[in-house]
């Protein structure tokens, strides 16, 4: 686990995985790793695809800024609910209005995940969470 990984509003649970994104090939690895992480938590295939799509979109978005970055995936727990968090540091966004960033992120990825938010401390980090619900197949 990277020391840069955010310890935020939810309790972290395994799996905790990280993928370094240096070029467009790594986006495939992000998608693959996210699918596997979501599978380990118990998400159905359709939800895995959805969460993996969000992780790949985030990786692609950051890569377009020219930043080599790391996508962190971790299980999260909140009052008995299990979920998967995708996060990435976003120092390249420092100085940009948090509201504007959130509006842009939610418009791009809000339909794929349950929560999109920014952690401002210790470093600006984009985070998204999807919660596991009753399996529908």
């Amino acid at each position, binding site marked *: 686990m990277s020391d840069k990984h955010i310890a935020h509003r939810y309790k972290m649970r395994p799996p905790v995985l990280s993928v370094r994104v240096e070029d467009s090939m790594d986006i495939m690895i992000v*998608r*693959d790793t996210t699918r596997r992480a979501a599978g380990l938590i118990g998400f159905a295939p*359709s939800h895995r695809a959805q969460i993996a799509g969000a992780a790949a979109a985030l990786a692609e978005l950051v890569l377009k800024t020219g930043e080599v970055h790391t996508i962190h995936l971790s299980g999260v727990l909140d009052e008995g609910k299990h979920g998967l968090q995708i996060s990435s540091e976003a120092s390249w966004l420092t100085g940009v209005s948090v509201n504007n960033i959130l509006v842009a992120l939610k418009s791009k990825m809000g339909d*794929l995940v349950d929560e999109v938010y920014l952690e401002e401390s210790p470093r600006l980090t984009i985070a998204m969470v999807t919660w596991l619900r009753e399996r529908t197949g």
Partner: protein
Amino acid sequence: MPKEVLLVEDSKTQAAQIKATLEGFGLQVRVAYDGPDGLREAMENPPALVVLDVKLPTMDGFQVCRRLKRHPATQHIPIIILTEKSGPKETLSGLQAGADDYIPKDIFASEHLIDTLHELGVLE
């Protein structure tokens, strides 16, 4: 007896590759090369699974998926969309159309496909 899969894919080269992969899993594969043919095949002889491309002539994969999921004779059939279109909007469109999984055609596609086939009960 092997379970039957209907593959709807307009590229003959890709259809042959996917067919070989699915046959390698012990499945029997029928191929339709466009959306209307795929719909007809699925309704006349419902398979255990439909594997669907998105970019198809006449009617795209999302439309085919929606129609299959609306029709009483085919709505129970699991559908996997296997496509080159991997963006968030396309993924969401596929899942909103009723697909049971949405798998980009990348180097991990076969592994994800086999996992999902197990999960959907198509492979035991």
